[in-house]
């Protein structure tokens, strides 16, 4: 569980990282943290926010003390890939809102990423084929690897589409440290 001091530190972390990445202040102020048993981050759909949210996710995951640095890098990569798909495909690079919820406890992290893009489903996790190398050479394909990576990294993925309301990607990964089984 994230305590209030952690949350204050996260706010400072966002400000400092935003400055380091030379993000306009407007981007920083779009990111808000909600305190609870988990952390929810709301931000504007923009590729400019990708790196800030990835670094923030790493910070939150490290506070949970459930994962090795290796696993934290993997999970934050999965988050980057999911956000990229939402920004590019669900919002088609138009403005919109994304809510990332990170709930760490019970020896696992649950991630929920919600968007309100009009187009609905940006993927169906069950229907993504593995990249075939021979075909890649011929096709000069640059995209389509993100979902493959997410499936490889995360232990569980679900995608819920509620037309006209929201789309939610749900992902889960079990602790590789196996600490705090009581669900801190």
């Amino acid at each position: 569980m994230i305590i209030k001091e952690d949350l204050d530190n996260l706010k400072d972390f966002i400000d400092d990282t935003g400055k380091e990445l030379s993000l306009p202040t407007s981007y920083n102020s779009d990111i808000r943290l909600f305190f609870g048993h988990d952390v929810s981050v709301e931000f504007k759909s923009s590729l400019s926010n990708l790196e800030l949210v990835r670094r923030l996710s790493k910070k939150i995951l490290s506070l949970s003390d459930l994962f090795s640095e290796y696993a934290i890098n993997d999970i934050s990569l999965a988050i980057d890939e999911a956000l990229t798909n939402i920004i590019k495909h669900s919002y088609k690079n138009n403005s919109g809102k994304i809510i990332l919820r990170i709930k760490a406890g019970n020896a696992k992290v649950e991630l929920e990423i919600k968007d309100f893009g009009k187009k609905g489903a940006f993927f169906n996790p069950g229907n993504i084929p593995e990249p075939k190398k021979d075909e890649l050479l011929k096709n000069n394909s640059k995209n389509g690897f993100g979902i493959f990576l997410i499936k490889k990294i995360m232990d569980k993925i679900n995608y819920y589409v509620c037309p006209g309301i929201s789309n939610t990607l749900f992902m889960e990964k079990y602790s590789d440290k196996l600490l705090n089984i009581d669900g801190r």
Partner: protein
Amino acid sequence: MLEVKISEKKHFKKIQLNGILNAETTPKLDSVIYKISANNNCPNILMDLENLSFISSAGIGIFIGSIGKIREKKGDLRFCNVNKEVKRVFELLEMEDFFIFYDSLDEAINHFIL
């Protein structure tokens, strides 16, 4: 967040990246690789990733998307100084045998001769 430096070596062009390669920063590198591969008969490119701290599938997608045309022209795109975190993404995508990696720039200079 991404700095791209190009330098000329005897057998290849070296592209050094400083920063991160995600969906926001990839267009910058994409146009550089495209120009080199389009304007050279035998485009040999060495990517020096010593100062690249993060790569997403969007970044690796640039290499995958351009390698076909580069190899058609009898050139190649190879890598040196790839750190563990970046190499991990190549491994997750099962692309580590798709490209040639050198541990150092010196090793690349000695072996990247087509």
